[in-house]
């Protein structure tokens, strides 16, 4: 496979995954805030700020009043904002275009439909009444895309590259979402002063943002707290959204690309194993001790993996 095309497929995977997480985060947060148990979490400004934090564009001025429609537009449908859903979808399609000969007709058609759906969505409807409909459609369409990727592509290098992109992005987004909600909990605590039901509420939202709430309930059979939420979303290998699960996937796919028994120490495969091993043998208590540090370290690890891949496989 051409290095340039591999790079494009990798990014196609990342953009598809990213658009899903942004969409889910937006609507889950927004709608769960409406009946939040504490007043602070109910505040619209609080929710909007949380969204900006999640996409990596936090609001620094505490007095700034955010305009809801403008913010929703920017995150969802503003093509001039790089983190907007529409930008992600556009880039996903652009990258698919340049690898059109390698992906299946079915996958391409699905991406194309996805793109036209976003492009033709009524902006006015979206900012006033369409948030739920739009976001749910996005998440459903990304599920279709995932199905087409799994079901209509040969599980060879092309597939491995796309899956590497998707899983790296998933791990990144889950960590970002954890970070955002952790931040929300701190802010909520700052107002209420206690670790209470309000906090548990934010953890529920977090799990829902990662589509993992039902799985978590089934596994722990009680309401989530800080510890169980982090353990589930970071360390539980059976949770398909957990960070360790993504790393396991990445390991599996890098082994398709790099079939050497003992990967060289400057290879991507080596680094992936190293990052995975570090996480695999972590206690949740260690994470809990210094969450911020943990998050920064992991995000950094993921960036390093991406850079290594770029150097090793996408050099053109």
């Amino acid at each position: 496979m051409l290095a340039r095309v591999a790079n494009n497929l990798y990014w196609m995977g990342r953009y598809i995954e990213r658009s899903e997480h942004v969409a889910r985060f937006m609507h889950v947060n927004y709608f769960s805030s409406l009946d939040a148990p504490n007043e602070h979490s109910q505040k619209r400004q609080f929710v909007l700020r949380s969204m900006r934090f999640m996409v990596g564009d936090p609001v620094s001025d505490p007095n700034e009043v955010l305009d809801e429609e403008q913010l929703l537009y920017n995150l969802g449908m503003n093509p001039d904002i790089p983190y907007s859903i529409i930008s992600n979808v556009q880039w996903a399609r652009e990258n698919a275009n340049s690898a059109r000969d390698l992906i299946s007709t079915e996958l391409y058609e699905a991406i194309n439909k996805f793109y036209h759906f976003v492009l033709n969505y009524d902006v006015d409807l979206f900012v006033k009444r369409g948030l739920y409909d739009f976001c749910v459609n996005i998440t459903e369409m990304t599920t279709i895309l995932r199905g087409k990727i799994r079901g209509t592509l040969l599980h060879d290098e092309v597939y491995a590259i796309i899956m590497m992109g998707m899983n790296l992005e998933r791990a990144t987004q889950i960590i970002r979402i954890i970070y955002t909600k952790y931040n929300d909990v701190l802010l909520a605590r700052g107002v209420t002063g206690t670790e209470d039901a309000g906090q548990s509420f934010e953890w529920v939202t977090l799990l829902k943002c990662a589509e993992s709430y039902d799985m978590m309930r089934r596994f722990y059979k009680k309401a989530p707290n800080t510890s169980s939420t982090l353990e589930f979303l970071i360390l539980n290998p059976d949770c398909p959204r957990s960070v360790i699960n993504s790393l396991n996937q990445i390991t599996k796919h890098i082994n398709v690309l790099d079939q050497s028994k003992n990967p060289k120490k400057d290879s991507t495969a080596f680094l992936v194993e190293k990052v995975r091993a570090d996480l695999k043998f972590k206690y949740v208590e260690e994470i809990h001790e210094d969450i911020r540090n943990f998050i920064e370290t992991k995000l950094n690890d993921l960036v390093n993996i991406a850079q290594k891949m770029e150097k090793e496989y996408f050099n053109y």
Partner: protein
Amino acid sequence: MITTNNQIFASYQKDPTLFDEVFDAQGEVREVYEKLFELYGNHTISNYVQLNNKAKASFFNQGITFQVYGEHETKEKIFPFDLFPRIIGPAEWDHIEKGAIQRSRALNLFLWDIYHEKKIIKDGIVPLELLSSSANYLHQMFDLDPPGGIYNHISGTDIIKHADGQYYVLEDNIRCPSGVSYVVCNRTALKRALFGVFNHCQAHTVTNYAENLLEILESVKPQGVDIPNVVVITPGMYNSAYYEHSYLAKAMGVELVEGRDLFVENDFVYMKTIKGPERVDVIYRRVDDLFIDPLEFRPDSALGVPGLFAAYRKGNVCLANAPGTGVADDKAVYTYMPEIIKYYLDESPILKNVHTYHCNRPEELRYVLEHITELVVKPVDESGGYGISIGNRLSKAEIAAVKEQIKKEPRKYIAQPIMSLSVHPTYIDESESFEQRHVDLRTFTLLGKDKEFVLKGGLSRVALKKGNLVVNSSQGGGSKDTWVLKNDQGPC
């Protein structure tokens, strides 16, 4: 006997001066269309509109579109497609196919000759000025033997049916003829919308083009290579024919590369893959020859690969079509096609050329001046439709002016009879009915080492504006699926 209880043709108007592909001079349905006509007759107009919309959606979702750049936004549009196919019977097709192969072979021999001994020039058959004035007559190709002796691996021949019911060739395209992907898409769309009709009609498949193309490309592999690595090179995804490039690469199962994916090392060509360099043996180029190598041709080209020509010259890679093929893809060379066919093959042309009068020949000049109202006068050295005078559309004063011009510099002009393209019933959105529209036919011919192939089908291009003779998609033309029937048993 077909009658007009046929709903969707109830309002069809026939201009008796035009050759209608479906109806004969008596207004009866031609034999090859009988079955189809009957089947389509079962549809109401609203049925038909629905099917047409479905077909359009199919193109749209497959991303077979072109961009229209507006002030605020970029819109994607599909190439207009008409559900009523064009049908060509086996005997008629046989004639077209033989003619297309004959032209391809003759052009290949012509190219070999003008890049080697130049006999046809020295024998005074084709004037030297024709070549020396062409920017595509590449000095670099002199005395170079392309692998397998093939220059024009891929050609597209534009054919029309004149009012006399005969086929005429309008143009031979041997640079980078495009359109074959639309042939396949049209067929797919028609099958999706009207699969039922295929149960009644035995039309040849068109999906075998890619496998034949790959075989042709593999047949001209460099010496010493067992299984050649074939690639398609494209200018990139913003090129208007990018869909076709990706379609061909995918259908052949080969890589679609851009110039930046390739590099040359010690006169061998490699592509940059995730596992390092991989050698490339045959390149189907969809980049114009003057852009393929900035060290040899246009130095400002960012689409090419530095050193590619040296690798080609050394025989380490094959380029299809060969560089310098464009010299024969020329209006002026076209006018010599009958002579070229005769000279190299000692045959008469199977497909007619539109007769051309060379004003530098005194007796032909006299004819042109006397019959100017029946002729199209073209300057030999202009392209893109510049300086063309259509005799029956000129005022008296204009005629006098054109005559003066020709007399002053007769060798600068040629003249041809005004050709009338046949018409085909075509569904028109605005009037929600079928109307006559002019069509042409682009056929696709492949030439390899000991192998030749003509795609049984082709791109029937339709001029959607009433009375318009220009079928190009850039001018708002559409297209139709084209069926070549398998045998004479039973009309369709």
